[in-house]
């Protein structure tokens, strides 16, 4: 049975800060830019915003948690923006990535806890080597990894992709199609870090290894900046500046993990299904009715795993499914139409949500998929905690 909340709430404003590698201004200042831009985009007086939600987690352990510099919390935004004099509701999510903060906002609106919710995701790009391990004592589970030089998330993604290649016969050549398609889309997205930088297949193959079989361009591009959204009820949305992008359904990954040692490839279908099945059940829609798919790509293989786990193709088929233009803007299923985290920038899934909104409201300009009626945005890799949304043109 379709979810009772289907089409009852909508995203009505989007705001981007500048996205850059090493900004001159603080993350807090950039986040306030994005929040103000989202409020303006909605055409709303700031004092009407009476709900707040974010997922403030630092990009990796050790990246710092100083509020306004390395993270931007609810507390920070509450203290630095002239919103409703008495904020009625807020939530600060610890797991599930930023789509979970959007889901909380949707639930708050349905419960009449507030009228207009501001959701943001601020990402810090720490100085120095990304994800470096500098401690000499490894606590907890890390004590079984760090002494062997295996501490970084990209090493685990590299091992999962190696296993996938072995199991299904995929190669780097297949992955190159995905990565260069994302770059082509980013070249049509003025918000993208790589907006003016094209990438050929030769560029992809010439890139240095990070952890073989993953190269530099298989990893998302770390940026510093923020994207913000405004959510409200469908009734209130009708009076605002842009057409509403309705929330048709949502889902979170609640699978139980068998393997304790980080994650393996073996459970990605089952684990991803935990999220995707809720997306399709709540919205009453399915992979075959999506006009485009914005699928998390912190590392390039994750999007392929999602194509399979969410039912766009069968298990072990994604690497061939994405060939021959099928996922291009003109193709049967455009994927990561804005360039993804690989080419727009690492926003932990917020860019994916913003793009789904742009597509179903005809605001995606040169990368617009004609008549996009329903687009899903999924955060996180299928084997990790994540969450997703189905966003539609009609309620």
């Amino acid at each position, binding site marked *: 049975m379709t979810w009772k909340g289907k089409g009852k709430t909508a995203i009505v404003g989007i705001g981007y800060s500048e996205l850059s590698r090493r900004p001159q201004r603080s993350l807090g200042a950039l986040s306030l830019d994005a929040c103000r831009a989202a409020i303006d985009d909605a055409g709303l007086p700031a004092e009407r915003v009476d709900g707040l939600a974010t997922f403030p987690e630092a990009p990796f352990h050790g990246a710092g948690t100083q509020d306004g510099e390395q993270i931007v919390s609810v507390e920070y935004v509450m203290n630095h923006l002239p919103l409703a004099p008495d904020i009625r509701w807020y939530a600060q999510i610890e797991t599930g990535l930023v789509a979970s903060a959007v889901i909380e906002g949707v639930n708050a609106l349905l419960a009449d806890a507030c009228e207009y919710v501001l959701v943001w995701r601020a990402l810090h790009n720490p100085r120095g*080597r990304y*994800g*470096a*391990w*500098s*401690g*000499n*004592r*490894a*606590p*907890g*589970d*890390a*004590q*079984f*990894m*760090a*002494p*062997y*030089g*295996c*501490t*970084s998330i*990209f*090493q685990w993604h*590299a*091992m*999962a992709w*190696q*296993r996938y290649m*072995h199991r299904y016969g995929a190669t780097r050549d297949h992955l190159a199609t995905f990565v260069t398609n994302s770059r082509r889309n980013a070249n049509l997205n003025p918000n993208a870090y790589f907006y003016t930088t094209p990438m050929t297949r030769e560029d992809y193959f010439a890139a*240095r*290894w*990070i*952890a*073989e*079989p*993953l190269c530099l361009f298989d990893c998302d591009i770390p940026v510093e900046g923020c994207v913000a959204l405004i959510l409200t009820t469908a009734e209130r949305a009708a009076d605002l500046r842009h057409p509403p992008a309705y929330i048709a359904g949502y889902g979170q990954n609640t699978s139980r*993990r*068998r*393997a*304790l*040692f*980080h994650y*393996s*490839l*073996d459970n990605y279908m089952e684990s991803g299904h935990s999220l995707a099945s809720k997306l399709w059940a709540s919205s009453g829609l399915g992979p075959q009715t999506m006009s485009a798919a914005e699928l998390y790509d912190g590392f390039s293989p994750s999007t392929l795993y999602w194509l399979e786990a969410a039912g766009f193709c069968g298990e072990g088929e994604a690497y061939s499914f994405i060939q021959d233009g099928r996922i291009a803007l003109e193709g049967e299923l455009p994927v990561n139409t804005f360039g993804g985290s690989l080419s727009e920038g690492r926003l932990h899934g917020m860019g994916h949500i913003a793009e789904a909104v742009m597509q179903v409201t005809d605001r995606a300009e040169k990368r617009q998929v004609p008549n996009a009626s329903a687009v899903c945005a999924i955060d996180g890799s299928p084997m990790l905690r994540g969450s997703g949304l189905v966003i539609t043109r009609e309620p």
Partner: protein
Amino acid sequence: MSTTQEKPRPLIDDLTRPFWEAAREQRLVIQRCQDCHYFNHPPRPVCQACHGAALTFEPVSGRGTIYSFSVMYQPNVTGFGDELPYLNILVELEEQPQLFLVSDLPAAQRERVRVGGKVEVYFEDVDAELTLPKFCLVA
């Protein structure tokens, strides 16, 4: 640059001490549930499979297969800078599916490493206090 830096060492706690003490004695032990016989690694306060608390450490064969591997090119981990690039393997012990341990191997072995390849444990004495169980390829 990194020659003088020490590699990370385990911060041994009550839960993990039996694993590391056995390694000092050249034995590989894994925490096992006495109720459902599930091996939990890394060790857990309650069994991941049945949530029971009857957990003790039992010797395992030290034999396994390479579930997957990668070659690390980034000097992200203190003390490993001079060994770049180095191999990491994810070893699936023969006792239980997805019972994983990590090991590192010299990059020179790259051509011999393959998914499904057989490995066995050996013990590397780091100093008087620490021995690391590691895995090497078997013919």
